[in-house]
């Protein structure tokens, strides 16, 4: 007596596969950058400055994507930049997701004074311009990877909190929650075992989005030289350097920019794809 619904198979779609493929490749590159990068990302060779990428006349085949004005290999720097970008994405993304979702779940489910405090806090938080806030925080915390991660969590927890709170409120109003209360379930059991699994697809979608945002924030901070030490190979730093020589050597700007763009796009598309695929109810 089951109806046809049980037999519907959803396709993963090109979106999930393409973005997943790109992120997978980049993650591997980030992981093995020291072993596979053709050059030392910091090694300068002033006689080999501004060499073009391999398909343009005058290129040196040893430098596939060319070199910057100090003669550093663009490809190697992008690979090592991926290391920094992905560490930030993973750690900052997860920390933000956990902090924001936890507060959002509790606020949306418990309501009352806790919700009141959290919601006002979110309103106030969101009125701050995020980039200025980040720069301010870094100025206080000092530069470095940890500071960037802390800054991202402090700024972006509201993004999770607001959405997860609304979703938790929605779920709390459902009859299955009433049934669990009638059955004598303790409140926290209901929150973790009944409500959380239904909010999880939303959290996962937001998480991948947040990872993309973390990559952007890291790039912005590197761009204004507030990230790690100034010669460290970060995508934002490379873009900032490439900007000064864009007419002489466009590749120094274009390659890290393209990689950054594709990575952020892939993160958001990957999240959407996952949500479509694993949401228990097609929403």
């Amino acid at each position, binding site marked *: 007596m089951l109806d046809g619904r049980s037999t519907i198979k959803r396709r993963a779609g090109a979106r999930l596969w393409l973005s997943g493929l790109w992120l997978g490749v980049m993650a591997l590159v980030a992981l093995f950058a020291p072993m596979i990068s053709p050059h030392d990302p910091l090694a300068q060779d002033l006689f080999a400055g501004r060499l073009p990428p391999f398909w343009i006349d005058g290129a040196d085949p040893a430098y596939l994507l060319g070199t910057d004005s100090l003669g550093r290999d663009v490809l190697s720097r992008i690979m090592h930049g991926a290391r920094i970008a992905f560490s930030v994405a993973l750690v900052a993304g997860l920390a933000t997701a956990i902090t924001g979702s936890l507060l959002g779940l509790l606020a949306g489910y418990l309501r*009352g004074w806790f919700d009141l405090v959290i919601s006002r806090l979110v309103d106030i938080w969101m009125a701050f311009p995020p980039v200025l806030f980040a720069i301010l925080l870094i100025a206080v915390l000092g530069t470095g990877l940890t500071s960037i991660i802390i800054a991202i969590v402090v700024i972006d927890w509201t993004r999770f909190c607001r959405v997860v709170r609304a979703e938790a409120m929605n779920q709390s109003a459902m*009859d299955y929650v009433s049934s669990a209360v009638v059955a004598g379930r303790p409140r926290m059991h209901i929150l973790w075992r009944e409500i959380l699994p239904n909010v999880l697809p939303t959290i996962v979608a937001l998480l991948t989005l947040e990872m993309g945002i973390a990559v952007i924030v890291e790039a912005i901070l590197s761009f204004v030289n507030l990230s790690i030490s100034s010669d460290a190979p970060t995508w934002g730093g490379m873009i900032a350097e490439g900007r000064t020589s864009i007419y002489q050597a466009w590749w120094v700007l274009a390659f890290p920019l393209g990689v950054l763009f594709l990575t952020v796009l892939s993160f958001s598309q990957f999240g959407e794809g996952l949500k479509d695929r694993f949401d228990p109810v097609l929403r």
Partner: protein
Amino acid sequence: MSAFLTVDNLSAILDGSDHRVLRSVSFSIDTGEVLGLVGESGAGKSMIGKAVLGILPSAIRIVEGEIQLDGHNLTKMKSADRRRLIGATAALIPQDPLTALNPSRRIEPQITNRLVDILGWTKFDARVRALELLNEVHIDNPERVMASYPHELSGGMRQRVLIASAFAANPKLVVADEPTTALDVTVQKQILRLIRELQARHSTAMVFVTHDLGVVSKVCQRLAVLYGGMVVEKSTVPDFFEGPKHVYSRSLLAATPKYTDPDASLLPVDEGVIEQVAAQVRAADREWRP
């Protein structure tokens, strides 16, 4: 012997106002008896069921009255004890089968977990009981249904599962909150018969919330008519359908469409009658206020 469930002079307000949503409601139900709570939308019928089960929305507060369940005074109990007592003796058949099952879990744990965790059954016993109950609600393929997710089942199937789940722990009281409203008419009839069947077999006391007097006549022995959170008439079902005493009940009954006269237009309840019953509610409020 006193009744299994007694609600005595129960009043509830919307928190932060002095607006009463339940106005000195009293009724009682014996074991094996079905009481219909009837009224138009917003009359407070679901609210009463929720008050009994302790699932009122947080904005609504009980300010007066008592609820006695199986000899225990719910309004005076500690909330943890109350939850335990309700969990062990009562169950809910919710209104909307589409939201009443957790979408992210399979059917089996949704029926059995409660038996195992709260009533201390073994997993095996709980599974046997679940299969038995799914059979009782005439599901042909219980094994497969137990392994399904809610979205894989149709509305009628889900309501069957919910009924089975409600009766799983042999509750002594079941609150059915408009259990057929969200279903289409052909399924409604089967589900009603099913509820009646299980209720009779387990001689459960039941509060049956509905706006459909036709349903009341099929399922209930007694009924209470509500208006504005106030009981305007209590009666046995045969007496009521022979001649309701209150004017509001009379026009409510008159407003029910009849199969015998399909061309008759739907009658709204007469405005004069509404004015009359509203005045009665206001008078009760004047008396109630200190």
